[in-house]
């Protein structure tokens, strides 16, 4: 068990596994922060997973896979934007419907496109490239952890920094937060609330698409029914605990991912393999509890911020 937790392989895979959570949570964060309580993360994610595998297969190119996933993510959230921002449909109902739609439609698409049930993989589905970081790769343990991660992992870290700076230090970022915080005041001071929300949704959709691409093409390039297995909802919970500190999504995603990866390795450690189905969710809830204790301790600071 101990050598399991100190192995560079486990931690490296954890960083990759955290990426899809991080990207989806970033996307969800933008939606929630702009005032649209988007619960459709799961449905958006599974749709982009499918698109990533399908496009990567047809083009025999991972780039098109990522492109297809992003386009699908944007398309799904565009539906949400039109319905919820412009036609004022109930966000929760539409979000729930999109989740069910994603979980129901992807098996149908799988059957229609590949004439197969359950899952699809092929050597022609190209996975994401893994990059070596010059300089770091030579460091003994750290090199194996940080270097050689998937392209999207590094991109996700950059995007986290970008979103943090955007929301905290730019005019448009402030307008987005204002639209979510006090809609009437934002509108009265000339912020185009609807356009900002629609934009936040579309950018969020692109990020969720990237998250789906990482999940589908990051490790073993394959699609299987229900492969997101609740990650979208865990990401949504992350968004809620991150509250105003968007950068906390990065450590949170790694925290959640540890249990995903460790759960998969339990079998080799001689423990019950069924724990794989329990551990990620039990850990997610435990982390939520810890985060609550942590933020309660720091509450005086955040309340005045």
């Amino acid at each position: 068990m101990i050598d399991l937790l100190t192995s560079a392989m486990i931690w490296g895979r954890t960083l990759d596994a955290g990426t899809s959570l991080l990207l989806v949570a970033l996307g969800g964060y933008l939606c929630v922060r702009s005032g649209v309580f988007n619960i459709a993360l799961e449905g958006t994610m599974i749709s982009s997973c499918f698109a990533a595998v399908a496009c990567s297969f047809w083009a025999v190119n991972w780039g098109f896979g990522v492109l297809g996933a992003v386009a699908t993510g944007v398309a799904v959230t565009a539906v949400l934007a039109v319905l919820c921002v412009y036609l004022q449909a109930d966000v929760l109902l539409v979000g729930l419907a999109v989740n069910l739609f994603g979980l129901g439609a992807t098996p149908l698409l799988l059957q229609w496109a590949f004439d197969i049930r359950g899952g699809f993989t092929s050597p022609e589905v190209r996975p994401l490239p893994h990059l070596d970081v010059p300089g770091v790769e030579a460091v003994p343990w750290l090199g194996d952890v940080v270097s050689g991660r998937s392209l999207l992992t590094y991109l996700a870290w950059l995007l986290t920094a970008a979103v943090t700076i955007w929301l905290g230090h730019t005019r448009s970022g402030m307008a987005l937060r204002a639209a979510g915080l006090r809609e009437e005041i934002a509108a009265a001071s000339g912020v185009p609330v609807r356009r900002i929300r629609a934009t936040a949704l579309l950018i969020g959709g692109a990020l969720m698409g990237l998250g789906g691409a990482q999940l589908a093409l990051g490790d073993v390039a394959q699609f299987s029914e229900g492969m997101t297995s609740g990650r979208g909802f865990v990401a949504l919970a992350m968004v809620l605990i991150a509250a105003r500190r968007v950068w906390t999504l990065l450590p949170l995603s790694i925290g959640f991912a540890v249990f995903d990866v460790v759960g998969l390795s339990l079998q080799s450690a001689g423990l019950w393999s069924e724990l794989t189905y329990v551990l990620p969710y039990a850990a997610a809830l435990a982390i939520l509890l810890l985060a609550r204790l942590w933020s309660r301790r720091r509450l005086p600071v955040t309340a005045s911020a």
Partner: protein
Amino acid sequence: MSVDRRATQIMALALLIGLAIAGAIIAAVGGGASLPAAAAAFAEGAYGSGASWGATVATAVPVLLTGISASIAFRAGVFNLGQPGMFVAGAVAAGAAAPMLAGPPVLNVLSTLVVAVTAGALWAALITTLSRLTAVDVLVISLITNYLADGLATLLTTRVFRDPTALGVIETRLVPARLPLLIEQSSFHAGALLAVAVCVLYWWILNHTSPGHRLRLYGHNPDFAAASGTPRRRYEMHITVVAGAVSGLAGGIQVLGVFLRYIDGSIGGSSSAAWTGMILAILAPLGSLLLIPGALFLASLQTGLLGVEREIGVSSRLSLVVQAIVMIAVAWGRGRAMRAQRAGSAGDGAPVPQPQTEGAKS
């Protein structure tokens, strides 16, 4: 009331759109010529014979009960989406308890149902407690606990309650007594009567008793209800526990009436009847007897599409897609109706009893 009528019209329209899209998908997968055959297979699968009626009713039972469960929670403005988890909790508890409880058949069935109800209620209480401890919206917590329930069910069934003689399938031992069949050679079981009774009871309590009045009051305006002596936290916990009990009952009935044991994966997942129940609670005007025909309709959609799957080979997951489309249309229609109402009443309408809705204003 005009909103209700408009909502009904929108729902009818939404169903037509949903069916049209389903037809289009079937035509795309199976070819245009397969449509008449698909329609025939649908009718055959849903209503064609005593057996298919039995299947439709048996499918409708958990949908109706979880629908009532969701409806109770939504009525109080608690957006708890944990019904699939409570449903699984009830089913696992029933599957585990029934072979252990001795006694004559009637007593065995009744005590198993009590265990299932308790398990559902406890799971619901757990969801509320977790949501309070983490200070995360119950909506999000309940969605995560659904996966946790599935995982725990697999773990418990495999490691603790597994039938040692079952090969390959992960399932509990056969229950010693089952809910009696009302039509022989079909799956029309006595749980259907129980479900209808629960629905009528719910309708009666809601409309003719003071606890029902309090529930409606709380849903319309929790602040007012709190001011008039309904302690918020305790009341929301009570409501959730009652909702969990009804979902747990659904799980128990499913085990005692249909599967006769808990089979891993038969209750949970994305094709869980509890999702359909939740959709039923959203589509049917909350808390009315319309839940019964609504459940039958949604169930016939499923059994009908199963018939289509047998004949044409299009996956019956199509029913999820149709339901999702109907839900989107209804959400849109409600938004329109609410806007129209607001424009008519000039000024802010009543706050919508749901968390985090947009302050819709044009």
